């Protein structure tokens, strides 16, 4: 009987060794032909060695295990390895995907090995590309990345102050005013010029928290103390704890109409 080939992907070397050691004891015919330190390496090594079994850590730098798996579904037996990612475990159960929770004991690994051995019995039941599994992986991959993509609005403003680059959380920004081709950022800790234009900033900042009130001014709504009406359909914005008064031009006055 020829050896079964396997790939182990985990960013933590001790855990790769540990899994390999247990597999050697429980499944002597299995030969670990490749070890990957991240999702990208896992995909590359998979294409190179075409292993019959793949153990994938879910949480890896760069490409996650779930992302890596999406290019392998149907071409190999996949087992996910995870530490306390409850949402992932739930998803795996829905898609009938095999998984191990770290730290695992040998009995649990033994069950996984048995299942794999059954599936690899000739004739190999080609794990027909199962639509449900693919859908689960896709959703899970989206969820893992989601935290990155759900954040659409600008959260930090990078401003050069002297020789350093300050990272200013937007909630500390009081207002922004255009200054020719630069924009002046005024925040709790000072003032700085940035290269972004008011127009770009108006697009990138969360409209729930910031409003453009003038062709050249964006204000943090949470910092407004009061708005007083001026002459000729204009108004002035007064700020909490600051002396600056910002103009509201006619076309933005509707923002402050009574609701």
């Amino acid at each position, binding site marked *: 009987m020829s050896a079964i080939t396997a790939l182990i992907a985990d960013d933590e070397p*001790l855990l790769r060794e540990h899994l390999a050691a247990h597999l050697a004891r429980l499944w002597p015919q299995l030969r670990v032909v490749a070890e990957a330190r991240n999702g990208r390496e896992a995909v590359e090594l998979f294409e190179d060695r075409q292993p019959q079994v793949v153990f994938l850590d879910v949480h890896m730098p760069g490409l996650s295990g779930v992302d890596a798996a999406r290019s392998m579904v149907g071409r190999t037996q996949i087992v996910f390895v995870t*530490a*306390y990612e409850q949402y992932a475990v739930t998803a795996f159960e829905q898609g009938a995907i095999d998984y191990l929770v770290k730290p695992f004991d040998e009995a649990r690994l033994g069950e996984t090995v048995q299942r794999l051995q059954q599936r690899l019995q000739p004739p190999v039941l080609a794990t027909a590309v199962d639509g449900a599994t693919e859908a689960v992986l896709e959703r899970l991959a989206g969820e893992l990345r989601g935290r990155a993509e759900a954040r659409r609005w600008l*959260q930090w403003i990078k401003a050069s102050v002297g020789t350093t680059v300050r990272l200013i*959380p937007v909630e500390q920004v009081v207002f922004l005013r255009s200054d020719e081709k630069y924009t002046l950022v005024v925040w709790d800790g000072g003032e700085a010029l940035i290269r972004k234009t008011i127009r770009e900033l108006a697009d990138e900042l969360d409209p729930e928290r910031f409003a453009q009130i003038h062709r050249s001014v964006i204000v943090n709504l949470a910092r407004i103390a009061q708005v007083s009406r001026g002459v000729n359909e204009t108004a002035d914005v007064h700020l909490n704890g600051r002396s600056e008064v910002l103009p509201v031009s006619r076309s933005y006055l509707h923002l402050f109409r009574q609701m």
Partner: protein
Amino acid sequence: MQATSLTADPTRPGFWRGFFSALTGKSVGWAIGLAVVAALMIAPIFVPPLPVLFGRTLFIAIVLLLAYTAAGQWRSPPLPRWVVQLAAIGLTAPIATLAVYLVSTGGDFHELFGNPARVTGFIMIGGAALVFGMVLALGGLYRERDAQANAQALQFALERETLQRQAADAQLKVLQSQVEPHFLFNTLANVQALVESGSARAAPVLGSLIAYLRAAMPQLHQGAPTLGQEEALVRSYLELMQMRMPDRLAFALAIDPALRGVRLPPTTLLTLVENAVRHGIDPSEAGGRIDIGARRNGASVTLWVQDSGRGIDEAQAPGTGLANLRERLAATYGNRAVLTLLGVDPHGVRVEITLPADQA
């Protein structure tokens, strides 16, 4: 937008809305009631019958009420609002009375001012309107001021309660366990691997884990730790992480030994180091190094944690750890503590905290 309803400026629709909401049934009732009383009082000495007199007093009362209410809607008057409102009464009373008399004389000024009886009537009704109007207006203003004072007291009470709740929330957040299950189980999996392979590293790694867990568990009665204690905690944490990612994490601590006695809010340094690992080193395939330091600068102490990891993406939501740390620093030092984030070339983040050093 939440802010707009609080800071609304009355443009035209706002004026009418304020006008009609100020014109309550109660104020109209008072005007009608006083018009009846005034008509009854002057009826014995006036020639026209009571209904006609009542019609006149009612007209004047309503005009006065409208003038008073309209004056109250003037948002930025040159004089105090109550002066403007009283002036509106003083001005409207004779004009409204004159209007009533002009109607009754068919618009003939000579008929009005040539007839002594009518002049007396004009002065009496106008004077009564002036006096009643002023008294009522003062009463109304007084009640309004009372209501405003009440509203303000309520507002203060609400703000105080909100502040207290926020303080309690911040404390609760600190007390909640800082240990992430994902971190704990992954670390335990590594310890398991060392133990099962009979590695000599198992015992010291377990020691680091115990030190970390003890420090990171909620501490109810212990006060602010010293910088020396925080340094030991951070070292334990980094040793654990280095065991887990030996090829991706390097670190160095450069804390001036003279500063080890400085007290600071619990897990100040740990929060920054955990952030550097979680957001800087861990997501990066190549990893990076973390440098931690503390130095005295005259009357203040500067702490820093710098990583060469992935850096902050401009649209990356700030973690709750950093927000909580800011809150705790503000609660302890007010604005005498400053937390600054800096970008590092070519990639990475440096966080600096400046604290007053008088605790040393």
